[in-house]
């Protein structure tokens, strides 16, 4: 099985410059007194990769978690493949739960700390969503899962429990679990931050394969080399706003904003 998303419309049909798959407008979020997002706009076209960078506390993870309503914004609009959710609108609780569920149905997420289900085997982790929620035939889901596990080199681990895996292996299962849902959008929340440096590359190379296979991805990461090589667009967040966004070639070589420059300098030359 290819990792390519099997959707009727892959890039080209809607055009790389057509309507964005994802558009977020005016995302605002406060935790008590603390304003974490102060009006964030972003969009991702189908098959493209958006990488969010920024100092810790900049709001980048909150933005990502807004996109599937794990952290519902206080206000703002998210449009995902034609489905529009207005978080500021006054909606009955049941309808609100339904629209959040739709956002989650359309996306898959990879967590910093993997969050695999510890009481389920690798295979069970992967087929849980497809079988239990999407009601796909169990045999087909297992076949897909095995193919995906083989792609990330974990076919021999299908019947072990997560605690028997290394961090890098767990994260690969996390990626496969998200892929198995066949989502329109893949969200990555600092997927390599909890990994030992020598295995970060394994996970990043799988992610860059996915990017080349036309998955639409939003990635929060500190791995600037990944952003530079894989991203179609990079957004730099600071203080709850998008300070600057652009193609990685532009943003990394000629940042317009002083704050961006300062951040990049600190990350690229930490010992200066």
């Amino acid at each position, binding site marked *: 099985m290819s990792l390519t998303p099997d959707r009727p419309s892959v890039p080209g049909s809607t055009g790389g410059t057509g309507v964005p798959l994802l558009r977020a407008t005016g995302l605002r979020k406060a935790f008590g007194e603390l304003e974490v997002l102060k009006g964030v706009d972003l969009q991702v076209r189908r098959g493209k990769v958006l990488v969010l960078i920024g100092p810790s506390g900049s709001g980048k993870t909150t933005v990502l978690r807004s996109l*599937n309503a*794990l952290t519902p914004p206080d206000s703002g609009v998210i449009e995902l493949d034609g489905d529009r959710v207005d978080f500021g609108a006054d909606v009955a609780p049941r309808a609100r*739960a339904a629209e959040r*569920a739709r956002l*989650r*149905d359309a*996306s*898959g*997420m990879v*967590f910093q*700390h993997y*969050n*695999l*289900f*510890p*009481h*389920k085997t690798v295979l069970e982790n992967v087929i*849980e*969503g497809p079988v*239990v*929620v*999407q009601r796909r035939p169990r045999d087909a889901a297992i076949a897909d899962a095995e193919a995906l596990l083989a792609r990330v080199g974990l076919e021999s681990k299908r019947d072990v*429990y*997560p*605690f*028997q895996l290394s961090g890098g292996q767990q994260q690969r299962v996390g990626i496969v*679990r*998200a892929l198995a*849902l066949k989502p329109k959008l893949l969200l990555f929340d600092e997927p390599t931050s909890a990994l030992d440096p020598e295995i970060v590359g394994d996970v990043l190379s799988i992610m860059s394969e996915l990017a080349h296979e036309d998955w639409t991805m939003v990635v929060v990461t500190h791995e600037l080399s990944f952003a530079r090589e894989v991203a179609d667009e990079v957004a730099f967040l600071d203080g709850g706003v998008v300070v600057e966004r652009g193609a990685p070639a532009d943003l990394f070589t000629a940042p317009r904003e002083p704050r961006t420059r300062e951040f990049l300098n600190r990350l690229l030359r930490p010992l200066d």
Partner: protein
Amino acid sequence: MDWQLAWDSLGPIVRGAVLGTVPLALISFALGLVLALGIALARISKVRVLSAAARFVISVVRGTPLLVQLFVIFYGLPSLGLTIPPWPSAVIAFSINVGGYGAEIIRAAILSVPAGQWEAGYTVSMSRSLTLRRIILPQAARVSVPPLSNTFISLVKDTSLASLILVTELFREAQKIAAFSQEFMLLYIEAAVVYWVICLGLSAVQGRLEKRLDRYVAHT
């Protein structure tokens, strides 16, 4: 020591255990667990009325003696026109008791599961209730087995209180024979031994259950 009496009384006492104590404990525990889960979910619910009601039930159950609860149901309710026979009275009182104590155990167990597990459930498109059932409760079960086993073992011993509302069970059989034979020491020690044997069996079951539920946890 009257070995003949010890032997002869063993039959009725064991029968009291098999027909009274054990089914009373099993049925009350099963019903009590269902109740406990309901109260625990109400307790952590965001709906204020529910969590307040759950807190109230837990407080009353834990704050009043089981014997008094038993007497209120069996001797008290008839004055309100509600007469419940001994066995059902005992089952009601014991289930509510397990419900109150079990609710706090289950609540703590649910809260002990990391928030990331809820989120992971949501991101594979599960609803809150599906995540609770398939992701959270199985993990909470592992955590709650030791304390719930404690509750169950306490319950087995507490069923002896049912003898005071005329339920035929282990201790009441022992009492009857003791009164008749005047061999109080012998009969009560014998009753104690039978309770102990039952609880030894339960501890063994608990050990196996824990081992089974621990299969997915790293042992360092």
